Every structure is written in structure tokens, then in C-alpha cells.
């Protein structure tokens, strides 16, 4: 218990020091922040947008926005990544404001000889097996139909790699609440994937 408290205190001190450095425009601090969090932010944005190119741009934008707003940021013991994810979430929302995310499946042309390549290239940068790519597209189509908070908890947990307690701390919620939210999100995702399969059959 004491060790846990000390660990947490050390993390808070470390974050506070980092925020000070960031406010002083230390290039080392900004580079450290970027290197540590760009990949997970990219995956988070990818989970929410389903567009790899867009995810690159938006994830990079998050840091530029953070730089512009760092002077208004007051560190209160909450991990700085919580702030970054909030910016990321808003950036994605702003980008898609007034229009729906284009689902990569819409780019697949049935009967097109190059369809498979385009399908993989458009939707699944990490997946090379065509059957897996189709599965990933089904998954993302189902994710696109999830409620926002369900999609968010899945994106943060599976794509950004945060644990449930970390998400709870980020959202100022009880762990129990986030556990049950996660569970409901998974159930909903299962249902929507089954519904999608049934529709294609």
C-alpha cells in the first residue's frame, strides 16, 4: 500500500516536472512526450476514424494543439496523457463534425481485380491476410455503430493500450464503472458484429 502510494507520488512528481519543462518549450521534453505517446495516440485515432492517413495527421495535430494550449494547462495530479487523449478525441470529433466517418468497406469494389489490395490498403495497414482484413473491416464497421463512450473505452483499452484503472483515472470515474462500461461495450460490439454478419449473409 505504501509502495503503491510512493509510486503514484513519484509519477505525479515526474508529470509535474514534465509539464514545467513543456511550458518552458523545452524541445527535449516535447520530443519525449511525442515519442512516448504518438504511437498510442495514432492507434486511438485510428480506432475512431478507421483511416490510417487521417490518423497520422490528426495524431500529429494533437501535439501541435497541446503546444498551443500548454500555458492554459494546470497540472492537478491527473496524468498528462489524459489531456492528450481529450485533445485527440476533440480533434476527431471536429474532423467528422457534420459528416459520418467514411467506412473503409465502402472503398471495396466487388469484382474489381485490385479490390483485395485496395481493401487491405484502405482499411488495415497492419493486416496482410485478406481474410483477416475482411474481419478487421467487419470489426470496424461494427465499431462505427457503437455508442460514443463504448467506442471510446474500446479504443483506449485495446488500441491505445491503457488499463481500465488508467482509463478510470483519466475520466475521473470509478474503476467499477469503467469495468462495467467496458463489458457493455464488448457485448454491444459482439451484437453488432453478429448483426453485420447476418446482414451480409
Amino acid at each position: 500500500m505504501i509502495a503503491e502510494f510512493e509510486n503514484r507520488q513519484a509519477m505525479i512528481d515526474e508529470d509535474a516536472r514534465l509539464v514545467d519543462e513543456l511550458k518552458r518549450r523545452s524541445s527535449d521534453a516535447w520530443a519525449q512526450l511525442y515519442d512516448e505517446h504518438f504511437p498510442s495516440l495514432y492507434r486511438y485515432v485510428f480506432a475512431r476514424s478507421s483511416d490510417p492517413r487521417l490518423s497520422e495527421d490528426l495524431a500529429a495535430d494533437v501535439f501541435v494543439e497541446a503546444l498551443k494550449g500548454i500555458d492554459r494547462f494546470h497540472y492537478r495530479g491527473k496524468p498528462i496523457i489524459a489531456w492528450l487523449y481529450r485533445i485527440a478525441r476533440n480533434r476527431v470529433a471536429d474532423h467528422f463534425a457534420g459528416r459520418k466517418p467514411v467506412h473503409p468497406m465502402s472503398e471495396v469494389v466487388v469484382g474489381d481485380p485490385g479490390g483485395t489490395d485496395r481493401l487491405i490498403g484502405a482499411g488495415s495497414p497492419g493486416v496482410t491476410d485478406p481474410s483477416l482484413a475482411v474481419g478487421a473491416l467487419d470489426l470496424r464497421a461494427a465499431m462505427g455503430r457503437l455508442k460514443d463512450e463504448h467506442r471510446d473505452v474500446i479504443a483506449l483499452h485495446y488500441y491505445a493500450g491503457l488499463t481500465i484503472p488508467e482509463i478510470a483515472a483519466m475520466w475521473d470515474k470509478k474503476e467499477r464503472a469503467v469495468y462495467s462500461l467496458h463489458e457493455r461495450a464488448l457485448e454491444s460490439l459482439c451484437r453488432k458484429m453478429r448483426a453485420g454478419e447476418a446482414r451480409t449473409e
Partner: protein
Amino acid sequence: MSSLRDRIKGAISRVRPGRGQVPPATPDSEAVISALKADAAVEPPVAATARGRQTLLSQLNEVPIGGTDSMQFSQFLMSPIAAALAGAVLLVGGIAGVSAATGGPDVTEPVRDAVGAGDNGHGDDSDGGVSEDDRDNVDDNSGAESPSTPFATPDSSDDNSGHGNSDDGDDDQSGPGGGGDDDGSPESPGATPDDDDEEGRSPSSPEATPDDDSEDPPETPEPTQTAEPGDDDGGHSGSGGADGNSGPGS
């Protein structure tokens, strides 16, 4: 039996998951979880990572330390102090509005006096705004105790002599009247204690009590208030703003 045990075990593990662990998935969701993990194995292209890093570092010198004034102002707007101030202003304004609308005293006067912003020219302030309302109120509640009498305080009666907050409550007719009547609002007919209670009382003035009448006479300035609505201008304008201030109450 074993399936029941499994179910109970599953339920318990769902209720008390280990710290940092996700409750065990059902077979149905396991497939989804593995699909999620496979899909989440994406990595940003190296070139894109380097480009973003370069962009960020190049902007470091372009964003001034401390931000702009407008940012600080917006920060102030978001502060709890600003929220409390806005809330207080809205509250006082709301109370004053309700009070004026119901023919009660101008409750901002004591507040202004308390903060040292008040003056003796109450009548002037209330001239325009309250008179319209008073016109109705007095018609309706002539001679009746105004619903806003609870606002009346000994202090306010002293200060706002023209506003009729002085002791009885019946002043309210001449009071807000005092403010409003300065304009010549036709509340004057109602201000006479006797007749108006009967005539002018509308169903909307159930507050009126006979007591008011008995207390009214010594305080109401009959000669001017019995004037016709049309004459009110003259009748009250004579006392005008002064009416409100030094009229009946003083």
C-alpha cells in the same frame, strides 16, 4: 452442476475483478477481443512519425510562452469567481424583476445602499421601469398588501421612503407606486385605502386583506392619488421623482 459452478465463478470474477485486469471474456466475446487485438497491432509509419515530430519541434519557437491576453481573459471567464459574480448578478436581477413585476418594492435599493452605491434619487431610477408594471398592479391590488412585502425591511423603509416599504405593507401601493407613480402611472386611484380595495381588486390580488385598509389612511396621500389615471402624470409628476423619494413615506 459444474456448469452452475462455472457460472457462479464467472459472476464472482465479474463482480471482483483483479486490479488492472479485465473480467474474463465470454466465449462469444473472445473472438471479438482477438480481432480487436489483431486490428490494434497497427503502427504508425516511420516517415509519418518523423514528419509529425519535425512539425512539432519546428513550432516550438513560434508559440510564445504565456499565451495571449485573450487566453487569460477566457481563463478568467471560466473561473469560479466569475461564475459566482454572474450568478449573484442574475439572482439580484431576477429578484428585482419579480419584485417589480408583482408590484413589490425595488429590492435593489437596499443592496445599492448597502454597498454604498445607492442615492436618494430612487424615484428617478424607478420612473421608467416600474411604472408600467405598477400601473397594472395598482389597478389590481389597490389597497391590498403587495405580495412582495416580505422584502420590506425596516432599513429599506427608511431609505426608500417613497417606495412605501415603511412599516405596513400598504405602502406598496404608493411604494412601487412611489417609484412608478412618478411617471404618473394610474395606480393612484388604487392608492386610496377605502374605495380601491373594492373597486380595483381583481381576482389576481387575493393577498389583499382588510387590515391593509385600516392601516392605510394615515399614510396615503389621498389628494394626488385619487386623481384620474390620465391626471396621474400631473398629479404625480408634481411629486415626480420626488414623490418616490419624499412622498408618502417621508
